[in-house]
């Protein structure tokens, strides 16, 4: 009851919330974008970054997001009201305060994230001198900062989704994300959008996907 009143007041003040899919790069953000797309959420993407070996199903990115630290003009974010846009966790603090945000935040084991990021850097021929242990620590602190920020921002709502759970039990994740976003999405299609085969950088102990 209290939440629905809050939602109503927020909607009057900010309009429809911008749905943000966030997380560290390689934590399943593209997969969640694909789920939302399939479920019926309009997607804000320009298709500039094309699918590749690291993201065979596409990136679902919007180029202006990458410039958010440098570009003072963030008025385009308002165009995302009622749509979903991918914003990596590092850039969340750049979101302007003139919109409300429903943030679906992807979480994945940091060692898996780093393994996947390091592979991607190799594919891109990018040098990487950072030590994995130091990077993992930096990411952990960064994620804690994001949580602190999310608590402070009255115009942010956030749900955390674990990548491994989304792959292993997509129906449960589709249900909780749909409930978070108001319950109007097609959960069956969201589930169908999940491709377990793309969960490639797994820690030992997790079940490997069955061959197609």
């Amino acid at each position, binding site marked *: 009851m209290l939440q629905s009143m809050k939602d109503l007041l927020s909607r009057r003040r900010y309009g429809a919330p911008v749905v943000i899919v966030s997380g560290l790069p*390689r934590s399943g953000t593209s997969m969640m974008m694909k789920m939302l797309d399939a479920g019926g959420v309009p997607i804000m993407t320009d298709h500039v970054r094309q699918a590749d070996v690291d993201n065979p199903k596409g990136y679902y990115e919007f180029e202006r997001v990458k410039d958010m*630290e*440098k570009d003072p003009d963030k008025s385009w974010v308002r165009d995302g009201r009622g749509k979903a846009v991918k914003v990596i966790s*590092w850039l969340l603090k750049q979101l302007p305060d003139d919109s409300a945000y429903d943030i679906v935040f992807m979480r994945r084991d940091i060692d898996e994230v780093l393994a996947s990021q390091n592979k991607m850097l190799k594919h891109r021929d990018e040098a990487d001198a950072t030590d994995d242990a130091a990077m993992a620590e*930096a990411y952990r602190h960064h994620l804690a*900062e994001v949580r602190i920020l999310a608590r402070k921002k009255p115009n942010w709502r956030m749900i955390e989704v674990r990548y491994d759970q989304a792959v292993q039990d997509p129906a449960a994740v589709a249900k909780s994300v749909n409930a978070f976003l108001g319950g109007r999405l097609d959960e069956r299609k969201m589930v169908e959008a999940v491709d377990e085969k793309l969960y490639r950088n797994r820690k030992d102990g997790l079940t490997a996907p069955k061959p197609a």
Partner: protein
Amino acid sequence: MFGFGKTVPVKLDKDLHERVRKIADVAGYATVEEFVAHVLEKEMIHFEDAKNDEDIRKKLKGLGYIS
């Protein structure tokens, strides 16, 4: 270190407080407060470390997620 009028109370779970008290005693801290402040100061450095930010920024740039 803890000047009069310059501190604020922080609530801790009773069990945690007891563990903290024991360790503070063994480790030679004068008070539980001194120990807690020291641990927090050490942890805060990680959050305030600009090098962490630079490492992350470099990595994200290499991955093509920021310009």
